[in-house]
């Protein structure tokens, strides 16, 4: 408990410090659910006195569906309910969707591209030997493209996370922690 209180404000400041440029680009990116943004622009820890806006929208349907298992240690039932409620909320589902809809297809794509490149050495050696420019052949070109694609995908992932997830995730983090308190 004391550990959490000392670390959280520091994290908040750290985030705001470098995420500041993202604040201008986020509206341009056109997030589909503006309702969650009411929680996002929070800059310090004095705000939590407010009611928590995004979660109650879906909350009424959820608590009924939460069975508190007998195996759960006494005292965690409340936190379990909070996590279930947050998980079912629209705001969280948005974050989850934007993470998975980027990460899963892109991961499959770069793994397939890398494995195809490795397999091509055995499957199509003649193609790989074809000269391209000077001493460069197709094999070298594809190898250098692997470097390039790695750098580009890194940048794309970071941009996606910054514009689609970061602010909403931070808002939801403070909301969840308020409810857990």
């Amino acid at each position, binding site marked *: 408990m004391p550990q959490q209180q000392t670390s959280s404000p520091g994290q908040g400041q750290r985030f705001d410090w470098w995420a500041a440029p993202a604040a201008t680009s986020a509206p341009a990116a056109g997030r589909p659910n503006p309702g969650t943004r009411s929680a996002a622009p929070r800059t310090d820890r004095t705000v939590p006195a407010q009611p928590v806006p995004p979660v109650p929208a879906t909350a009424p349907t959820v608590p009924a569906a939460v069975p508190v298992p007998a195996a759960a*240690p006494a005292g965690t039932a409340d936190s379990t309910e909070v*996590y279930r409620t947050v998980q079912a909320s629209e705001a*969280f589902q948005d974050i989850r969707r934007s993470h998975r809809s980027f990460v899963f297809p892109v991961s499959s794509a770069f793994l397939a591209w890398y494995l195809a490149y490795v397999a091509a050495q*055995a499957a199509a050696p003649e193609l790989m030997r074809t000269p391209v420019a000077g001493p460069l052949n197709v094999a070298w070109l594809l*190898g250098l493209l692997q470097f390039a694609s790695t*750098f580009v995908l*890194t940048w794309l992932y970071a941009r996606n996370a910054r514009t689609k997830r970061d602010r909403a995730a*931070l808002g939801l983090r403070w909301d969840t922690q308020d409810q857990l308190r």
Partner: protein
Amino acid sequence: MTTAASIATPPPVAPTGDHHDLAIALFAVIVLVTLGITLWVGRRGSAAEDFYAGGRDFTPLQNGFALSGDYLSAASFLGVAGLIALYGYDGVLYSIGFLVAWLVVLMLVAELVRNAGRYTLADVLALRLRRRKVRAAAGGASVVVTLLYLVAQMVGAGSLVALLLGTNSASARTWTIVAVGGLMIVYVTVGGMRATTWIQIVKAFLLIAGSVLLTVLLMIHYHGDLFELMRQAARHSGAGRRYLEPGLKYGATSTSRLDFFSLGLALVLGTAGLPHILSRFYTVPTARAARRSTMWAIGLVGGFYLMAIALGLGATALVGSAEVRHANSAGNTAVPLLALVLGGGNGSTGGVVLFALISAIAFATILAVVAGLTLASSAAFAHDIWAGAFRGWSLRRRTGDGAPRAEEPDSDRQEIVVARIAAVGIGAAAIVISLFAQQLNVAFLVGLAFAVAASANLPVLLYTLFWRRFTARGAVWSVYGGLVPAIVLVTFSPVVSGTKVALFPGVDFHWFPLENPGIVSIPLGFLAGWIGTLTSPEPADSDRFAELEVRALTGAGAA
């Protein structure tokens, strides 16, 4: 082209004794500086948070350097450039898997692990699957992976340092292994994660700076004409045009091609399961910092491998493949020899200084990597196996909720004592195993460590983070279903018996044709986790998954 190869071999540059004194002096400086860092930084706190996670207050830039420091072992610095010097394009092919692997870390693992865990890989699993045996299985797999990697580094260190110091005697190798092992135990037990991280940062900085220096000198030598560098490398390789084409090393038979595919799979999936890489993410305060440190690491690692390609080509062009092979059959001294030539050749002051400098950087690299591995290994032992076995219930309560209900400084302190003892024990075990395993091929051992990490650690981690229905039985099956086949297949592979270079050359009980088990054991790890989950008597605990998902994606309640 082939006629040119025979006439245009550069003059020999075999190292003689005179430049080793400076190298020894620089080695001593490295040892003193790292010990100084350890003593200085180690005083700043000895709580569990400090020992395992370095106080969690490193910046993304610092952690990015530390990550690349942990990742770029001597095998990368000297080994990859050496492979390129000897086998041209096939060495390039080998290096690419090491880089692409970071995309898996960045997208699927880094942020979620940072949010969901405290100190180790098993913490992430334990948040959701609160079973002692899950924690013990994951901890055990982590110890196996780090120990394999550790032995690889120390065996490499023994032959490498002996080579750089100009002696090739068995006793020099033995004493190097013992000294490196002793130093790493001191770093870890005295300094913990904070000192280890600073050593990694210093080492990564030296490594990148050394590579940039050599690359710039090489570019000046060729006036920036990379095509001319490639052409001259092909001329001096003894293989002509084939040097720049695939197949010089990995293309002999269909078995060797399949073996390389297996290795490629292990490399690209293994990094995200390496315990010493994962525990780095706990040294930064937030998941966003973890993401940014991974991006720094990708930039540094990618830039480094691009430079390593240039240096490997440079070594072939300016030193010659035959000379590189003559100095060390695995090509490990290609970069130091290139430094000697770029500095002005053997006997010149510039050449001697540059050779000693690069050798010292390689030595710093070895020390830093083994320290990181020992720390990860002792953390897995103390935090997952020991604490799970003897403190199961209290630990469960502590890691269970966002807000720890009762702080237990006493048992934390006890756990750190165990971790320090474990570091000594693991270090000693690694020294002993390394002394017996000196004949093993270092590249093979590293490939094996990656294969085990990809088979035993990655499936269970991905299932835990992303699969709603995953259960405790699935987790245990997944860990052992990847770990056991990997070990068994290697035991019955040509590495252990049946060939001249095997561990037991006299006998032949091998039936598995490949050196790297990844292509079989990685799918088995995923399959075992899937079957274990389907046959599980109890359904998945959806409450725990809700907690894991919310915490992993938002950072709520993160340590």
